[in-house]
């Protein structure tokens, strides 16, 4: 079997999210159920982040952009738009080391927000964005 089948399924489901949401502005229970099956426990927390509009798309004049996700404790996590990485410890342990979970809730929240287009926008200066990238642990 080819590797990454779960990723393929996840991608397709997110496309379904995008499609359904753009058309009807809701997510069906079926779709949520399928997402739950693939993403596991991260989904609930991610949806909560999405509900609370906890994903912010940060852009700067130079064109570089990233996502800031508000964690449950109010901490901000910097997620890159094209990559699947999150500085949170769940990602380190459960996703990277143990491979138990496909993504952490922050990355999933970014993915869902992207699919639904429900993130907030923030424009910062180039320097500020660099600051976010360089100093992401203390970014508030």
């Amino acid at each position, binding site marked *: *079997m080819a*590797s*990454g*089948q*779960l*990723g*393929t*399924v*996840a*991608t*397709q489901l*997110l*496309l*379904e999210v*995008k*499609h359904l949401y753009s058309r*009807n*502005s*809701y*997510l*069906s*229970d*079926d779709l*949520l*159920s*399928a997402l*739950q*099956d*693939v993403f*596991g426990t991260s*989904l*609930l*927390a991610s*949806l*909560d982040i*999405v*509900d609370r509009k906890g994903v912010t*798309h940060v852009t700067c004049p130079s064109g570089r952009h990233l996502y800031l996700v508000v964690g449950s404790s109010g901490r901000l996590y910097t997620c*890159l*738009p*094209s*990559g699947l*990485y999150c500085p949170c410890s769940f990602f380190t342990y459960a*996703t*990277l*080391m*143990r*491979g*138990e979970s*496909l*993504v952490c809730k922050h990355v999933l929240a970014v*993915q869902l*927000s*992207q*699919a*639904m287009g*429900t*993130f*907030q*926008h923030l424009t910062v200066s180039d320097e500020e964005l660099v600051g976010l990238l360089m100093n992401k642990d203390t970014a508030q």
Partner: protein
Amino acid sequence: MLKKRKNPSSNKGFPSFESFHEEAGSHDQRRQGGVRSAASSSTKRLHSEWSKAGEGFAGFSLDPEAHDHNKPHSRKRPRVGSWDQPGVCRQERNPNTSEDIPIEWSESEDEAEQEADSLSDIVPLSPVQSASQEEDNIISSDQSDAVLPARSEISQSEASTISHHSQSEPTPTIVDQSGCTSPSPISPKSMARHTIPKVLGASRLKRRSHVSSSPQSCAKVRSSVVQKLLSLKPEVTAEDVEISDYESASSDEADGDKAVSSLEVATGSSVSISTPDASPANPISASKGSPKTGSDWLKKVQWQISSPKDGDNEEEPRGPLDSTRKGKKFVRGGFAEQLQRLQSRERASITFWNHKVANSTFDPSDQKTCLVVKVLSSCVECSVHITKCKTLSGHNLLDDPQSPYVSVLFNKQTAEQLGLMPGNTVAIYPPWQKLSIPAHDYPFLLCTYYCQPVAEGTADSQENLEVEQSEIKGPAPSLVTNLSPQKAQTVHSMLTSTRKSLRPSNLFPAGTSTGEAGTAADEDSSAGHNRLYSVRTGQERHQAVRSFLEAIEGLSGRASPGLHVVATVQRVWCQRHQVTLGQQALLLRAAKTQTSVAEPTQELRWHLLLEDGHGAFCELQVPNVLLQEEGWAACLHGGEGKEWVFSGLRVTHRANRSRMPTLFSLIDSVWSDSTARESWTSQQDSEQSENAYVSMPTCLPPSFCYLVSAWPGESRVEPPEDNLTSSTRDGSGQSKDSSISAIYKSAQVVMLADSEETVADSARISLYVKLRFWRSQPSGDSNSTMETGRVLFVWDGSTTDSSQPYSKINVRQSCVITEQVMNLMKQPGACLFLKDILWEKGRVLTADVCSVLHQACPEGVVTEWWQRVTPPHVWNSLATAVTPGLQVVTSSANLHSLVQVQGQVLSVDEETAFSWPECDTCGNNRLIEQGSLLQCPTCDKTVTEPLTRMSLEVYVDCPSLEKSGIVKIKLLQDSIQQLLSNQQADDEGYELQAVLGQELRPVDGCLTSISRDSAAERVFMVEEIPQLQDVTMTTES
């Protein structure tokens, strides 16, 4: 509270306690108070407390070192103090704390002997208490935590003692039923000697043991416990209460019996601990009650004791509720909430399922309703088992006969339950979800929670399937050992290969599809949308019932909730809904904007009044968004009177007459105990004799009504299958459209004149009318208690009263008028069908929220429904109705009535006399003057032939008023032009004199107000209404 209580014996002769507590006790003062009182009570009482202590602790603080504090005083008392060790042990009540502490048993046998000695002197046995100990031991909950842990030291040691004993002797003789004075016949020394070491071996006790008794560790424990205690806010528990209670009960030390009788305890507990079965060999435990009973009693007592004191307790009790209180609050109406509900439903359903299949094996007869697959290969990715399977049976459920292969995703739990291995055969029951992926040859099945392993040979298939073991489970790269195969490969490739594979999006391809840029994959998805679809159980499909009550009853315990009923749509109407704050999240999401909507907004929802086969009603709300779905559109637009199968409806409320009088007035109008239903039900009866409701006579109108709502993505509606359609023959033998349900009661169409003869106090009637004029009801009308709305002046040719040829109909604001009808109403003489107008005795006809305004028999629409609601005589009467003339205004004319005005123009209200140019294309009256030309900013063109609009109000002397007043009439354009027809306008406008004295032709108007002018003359304010051109009726052929 305990501190305040004066204890006569406090501190007498127990200095060691005091010192000990002070040393131990940076802990809560209140607790200390309790401790003090405990300490100051007699030794016996202490024992009595210990005796109750039995729950999850084995505080074996028999360590000699621990007694050091007390040594200076006496040989015996210190020991008591050490047993008590209240400072430590009470803090230990936190089970979490205690569990971490290993037992260190460093007790000398001598000590044990002494203790056993003292114990045996004092402690008799109580079966009840023993039982309670057993249970406490089991429960070890926060509640049982109330029992003094300090006492547990003794009780444990005793317990162990006796447990050993009782193990060796099936019928222990130590138990003294009287529990008061008889000493135990067992030599305590011998007990102690061999029992105490045994304790360690006894797992039950070991589990509870947690207090270290070596001095260092004891101190450590203490400090750590104190710390934990400090961090936790202690509360007054039953423990303290008990102590005080005992004190008050037996504060006199001499009253030994009482104290002793309450002691009993520990030994008894040990009996039950060692013989948890309460074997019949033990007559006492058998006769005096099982462990359960005793503990119940104890708990009850504790509860009774502690509950009245709760008032003193300012802190919240820390109980098992704590964990539930942590439940996170999600945004109302948010996705997380939706998922949470879904999860709990699924969990419940899966639990049911697991219970159902726990002891059963696969039934081959299920093969038609489930999918049987053979697992060819399996790999684990992120705890999800991805298998490639070949379908053995149940292809029909897949709708995809092309490939026999499917990829089935099993979650960890399901896989464990199935013992999933390549080569297994698994039966998968609906519901599940199928996801087709364009690049993938065969579909993925998700949410396969309802599975059952199939033993070899049970399924039909005789095929020998080659089983390929998953190749992926290769050795992971040495760098990272615990990676999932997928990640391992990725990391491996990241480490070894090209830059391309370093792109993190390879991990998870979705990462590439950003929200702003629609990728090719996106388009692909939107082209072939709905790749995900849910396979539901056949049960769900066919279980549509004919009764709401049955359907609602059947809701419990189903994974996919929602009513599934067959019902007749009696009425359809629209209603505006205030979108509440809680719903704003949804709305914002729908609007996909970031702006917050502060002001409440309105949303249009469809309402359907449904009636089931048994005369029960429910009101169904359908959000407007569902109109996009084909089934709903058909149901909402042409579904009235027909039967539909609804599924996935959620029950929201239950209404009764007092709560929703409007709805019930509508229900009353359609409800009938008519022959139609009886014949229908009897017909059903002959078909389905098991129908329990049929025999129930329905003679009373319904007193309640369920409010249900349809949800996007969940709720569906479809026409019933053929066998469900109630083909109808009514009594007259008249053949009807079979699609119209027999229980449908179409709108009661009457003529305006007939409406006055309605017998009931209130009713809902429907009218075919011609509209003469309508105007908005002024909101500030002090005379009107009606909400703002519209007033319609209509006629239908049936009214013979020439003084009031037009009937007034109030249309409330809540009545939704469609745009189409609004456009129609612009032209006077329009034919309207007013459905379900509320008629109340002595009041104006009212169109309220349940009423619907239709275009009367829209052109080209000749449906069954329209024929049904259009009695020929009504229609003919309307078609031939001549426009009645209005009476001229008299001094007795009613306010807000239509009158005719004719007379001589007395004067002109010059403030209202002006004219302005208007764009001939768009009607814009804000034209820009550019030189001599006019420019319309809207049309962006030069207006060459502007229309001239005029406004004029004139005072008219009407002969009909007989000098009792004059009429001030606001004229319309046509009348003004007619007045000015014989003069030419100059630059200044028109000459006033030319108008004065002119005879005004008869104009129709609406009397809006009656006031008095400065000369105290009555002024009848009239607004002219458009003249009526004869409208040709569209009659159906």
